[in-house]
């Protein structure tokens, strides 16, 4: 939650990114149970409605799944679906265009990308 890159975002968006990052880094494994909204809210000291909103977003994006009566679980992280890829592509393109307009070179972009992929493997 304290990642400085996400500080300008709403709390629910930060929590969404944090959980995605946990999944990407293997901190949370597919099929693993997530804390209930209440326990997560207490752990991160956020309003429960904010946590519930983050969970809803993650569920809609297929990152987590709610099994009625059992709780919330990290979804199976098979290769991203085509739909999911199509959804994130415009945001990526927009970021690259802005970066290029700001004078970021191909090399720099590549090193930024690499930094993301190396994260968690260290």
């Amino acid at each position: 939650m304290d990642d400085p890159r996400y500080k300008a975002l709403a709390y629910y968006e930060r929590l969404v990114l944090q959980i995605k990052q946990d999944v990407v880094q293997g901190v949370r494994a597919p099929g693993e149970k997530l804390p209930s909204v209440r326990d997560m809210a207490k752990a991160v000291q956020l309003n429960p409605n904010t946590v519930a909103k983050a969970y809803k977003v993650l569920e809609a994006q297929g990152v987590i799944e709610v099994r009625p009566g059992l709780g919330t679980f990290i979804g199976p992280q098979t290769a991203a679906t085509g739909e999911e890829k199509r959804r994130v592509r415009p945001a990526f393109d927009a970021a690259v265009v802005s970066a290029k307009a700001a004078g970021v070179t191909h090399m720099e972009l590549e090193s930024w990308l690499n930094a993301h992929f190396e994260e968690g493997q260290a």
Partner: protein
Amino acid sequence: MKLTAQHLAKTIAGKQVLSQLDFTWQTGEIVGLVGRNGAGKTTLMRTLVDQYHADHGQVAIDGRNLAEAPQARQNLIYIDPTEVFFTRMNLAKIAQYYAAGYPHFDQNRYRSLLAANDLPLTKRYGELSKGYQALVVMALNLASAVPLILLDEPFDGLDLFIRETIVKAVIEEVAAGERGFLIASHDLAELDGLADRVLFLKRGTISRAVALEQVRSEAAKLQLVFATNQIPAVVRDRGQILNIQGRVITALFPAYTSVVKAALTAAQPVLMEVLPLSLSDLFRSEYAGEVRHG
């Protein structure tokens, strides 16, 4: 359960402290109440529980006017930590008084809350440190099994661990959806993230109510530097300047749309960086005028 305050007004010693004050608050919701010192936060809380009779207006719970149905007040609890009647009582005795006033008072819950914080029932309230007194007040609030709980400066002067204990208790109670909290506090960092909505009290009335998460997804706080000393029109028209230091402008844009973003980019800033938007920034923008005029 829903509390509705309509057109509340209260004059104390010739000074109009509250006027035309309206708001609603319901269970499942954490509402923050902020304002400058002396803005009337405590007066509002006292008026809500009828410790002060309102001069005008009414407070209703689920449509029942508390002036006509005073028994509905049992759905509300307000313990002013600075003005308690039980300073000289021991913790067991205090619970008897609250059990008399609140029929669903849960003695077991009270005892277990105190035990969790190593508070013996034989201690007198007045002998306890400020932090432990705050925990006793919270234990009374929770054990009273009341849906709508008013907290007045619940974090004031407390250490990190006691603050966390109180925040977690609030979250725990609200998550079940059966309780709501109205929290008056100067601790904006603590309210940020905790409150669903924050009410700004100014000149005796609610001047602004903000849903923080919504504001954060619509607004932006930017740090801007332009090549010339001229501040572009878009900054003044669409933003509120929070601070200027040399050529570095910090501004809040309540509606940070793609149009605003494009206009700012067109002004060719040397630096344009998005900063975290906190409740303190909104507080600053709301009360900035009052500071200048003393």
